[in-house]
């Protein structure tokens, strides 16, 4: 290797980084199409956080338009999302949780500490169900319609704006239809 190339290495490394950052600008980290949209919610059956003897399954999500929120106690963004979920729960929209790759005592503490916006939480200790749902990171939120079909996926924490502009209008619309 010629001598001068060695001194160009830092520059090359930076150029690679800058290319990555440039790509990053055109990607919205919060929007990703999910292949699951329009498909039935993947089947699962997991013990609930609240009571391990009771199971939660995809069938529980049917009959009502509901939210399926993937969270974990190790996820800082979830901590910031939590108050939004609490407010959302007060509107009466059913929220189901998937506690992803977590441990039981921490998760239970989280709910007593910050309040429990969920109808029920599936406890996905190994993250297997998360894989079927195409979960890459927490938090993620799915909207499931009355027939149990996934209609929308939001990646990253829900904020008041997202709820007002995206989530609530879509839920209203889905509630109005028979589908």
């Amino acid at each position, binding site marked *: 290797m010629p001598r001068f190339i060695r001194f160009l290495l830092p*520059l090359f490394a930076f150029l690679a980084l800058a290319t990555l950052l440039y790509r990053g600008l055109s990607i919205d980290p919060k929007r990703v199409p999910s292949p699951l949209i329009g498909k039935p919610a993947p089947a699962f059956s997991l013990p609930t956080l609240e009571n391990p003897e009771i199971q939660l399954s995809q069938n529980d999500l049917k009959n009502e338009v509901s939210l399926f929120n993937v969270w974990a106690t190790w996820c800082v963004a979830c901590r910031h999302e939590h108050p939004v979920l609490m407010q959302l729960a007060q509107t009466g929209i059913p929220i189901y949780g998937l506690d992803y790759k977590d441990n039981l005592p921490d998760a239970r503490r989280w709910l007593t500490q910050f309040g429990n916006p969920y109808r029920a939480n599936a406890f996905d200790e190994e993250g297997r169900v998360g894989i079927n749902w195409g979960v890459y990171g927490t938090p993620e939120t799915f909207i499931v319609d009355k027939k149990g079909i996934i209609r929308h996926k939001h990646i990253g924490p829900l904020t008041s704006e997202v709820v007002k502009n995206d989530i609530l209008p879509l839920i209203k619309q889905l509630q109005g239809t028979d589908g």
Partner: protein
Amino acid sequence: MIPELGHFALILALCLAIVQAIFPLIGSLNNTPGWVNLAKPAAMGQFFFLAIAFAALVQSFIANDFSVLYVAQHGNTQLPLVYKISAVWGAHEGSLLLWALILGTWTLAVSLFSRSLPAEMLARVLAIMGMISIGFLSFMLFTSNPFERLIPAALEGGELNPLLQDFGLAIHPPMLYMGYVGLSVAFSFAIAALIGGKLDTAWARWSRPWTLIAWVFLTIGITLGSWWAYYELGWGGWWFWDPVENASFMPWLAGTALIHSLAVTEKRGAFRRWTVLLALMAFSLSLLGTFLVRSGVLTSVHAFASDPERGLFILVFLSVVIGGSLVLYAWRAPDIPKGGGFSMLSRESLLLGNNLLLIVTLAFVLLGTLAPLLYEAMGWGKISVGFPYFNKMFVMLMPLMVLIMAAGPLTRWKQQNPDTLLKNLRLPFIISIVSGIIVALPAISGSLSAGIAVALSVWLLTTLLTSARQRLRNKNLSAIAHDIANRGGRSYYGMWLAHIGIAVFIIGITFVTQFDVEKDIRMSPGQEVSLNDFVFRFEGVEPKKGANYQSQFGTMRVLKNNKEIAILHPEKRTYQVQKKPMTEAGINAGFLRDIYVSLGEPLGKGDWSLRLYYKPFVRWIWLGGLLIAAGGFLAASDPRYRMKVARKFKPGAQSNQSSTVLAGNA
């Protein structure tokens, strides 16, 4: 009127920055003293107008001028005065103005305190800082003008983010920015030296105090941020590996490597290319952090309003500054002469080893921070990198670093006789292993991690004591005072203090993660609960009105041996405008432990869910940070950086008198 004045002052500051960037540099290259001499007045003028602009924005906040868009977004008539002022840097536009003002301050300081610097060197340094200033000022004026008007004016402001309405966070950004921007001085010195082609020990000596001071501010800033996260987020954590935290940690790692590498370059003339590269890297990472935080490419709890246009501007700026400096490096570095050689075992080789470890840590942090972006750009899907990755990395690299770090001060420059070193290390080694084992015993703690942490800390402490004993042998108190007052001494004592800080920090992080106790519980008013030796008596929660918020004000009495030791008031606050519920933990701080109470949710009939924590040694984390910063400050204050004319020593005064005080130690 005042906002327009501020806007105008910003434009004038930009004009002066352009003058400062162009003329002195050209003048220094073709020997035109008149142009070289423009650097200082331009720097002073720039600072003057930046100060006016900043004062104008502060005044707009104090006067509740809601016809200014930025003030309407983040100000409020009900905000207490201190938060009206800190609201100036509470969001994107104003924090940029603070950044620019701080850059102006550093530039002014360099122009005032560099009398020993050759005129053309100073001109080049100031010119580079002018270029950086051009970038930030035009960024502000073209994409993020803090003085933009809002017509018609708003009746009331949108309030500073309640999370930031806190004293710790009022002073955290200025400290952090002092650090980030301060690294631009080391950067500018490196570029100026590369332009001049002279990277010698004099360059290292000029850079060292500036780099140290910037690094001290960065250390304080990060420590404050961690302390704030602990008491404000109500979750008891003190570091989250959030992208924004990483953005401040990466320049710190590079800066830490840099101050050590600079020491080698100054003392031994070695590592010149490496040092110059580190100087470029440290500031580049500050800029990278700015990009990550403000462009919206990563999601973070701290994220500023993200905007691709702004992102593109910073990216272009980043490419010019970093790309340009690395091109210059590639062009000039091959001609930098090699410094003094050293053998496999020497202080140089140990410092190099730790430098590499710091850079490996930095690479892991960078990778973890950018992994989500990388995965997405490559179409590999999404990923979130969390705690486990970073913690594992840290736990693996930290002990190695400490092992080497402790041996450093006991090792000679250039070449060290292995037998002597082993002899010096034997006793510290035995003491630290024994104390580690004792702590790890089931009867004491039963925790292997705690044992390892204690062993590492004791290892640092005992080697530092050995080194101090060698240095102070045959000296009495007045000789030590001399040592501190005169040249060279303070770098040593600064190192000593900072390394003790690391030992304290290690104990803090390990003990608090190993031995903290927490209890989540439903409590009714009057109920008592015990945790360790403490009894917590819940007195209930009552509504209380704060300055600009409504509080659910809890009262908890803490008793030990039937004696009341603290009354804590955990709160839940709802701020008037933004309606976000904020938790304020009730904390009883102590040297050896904190008691931490935070309010959960109301459960009806006056009952609340509560979270009680016993956090042993948690203060040691920040105490360690402060000791590190104090050590850096002591080292930076070494008179040899300031004196042009050597002070007159009285030879013999230090060694003739027999030492009685230290005889026992020696």
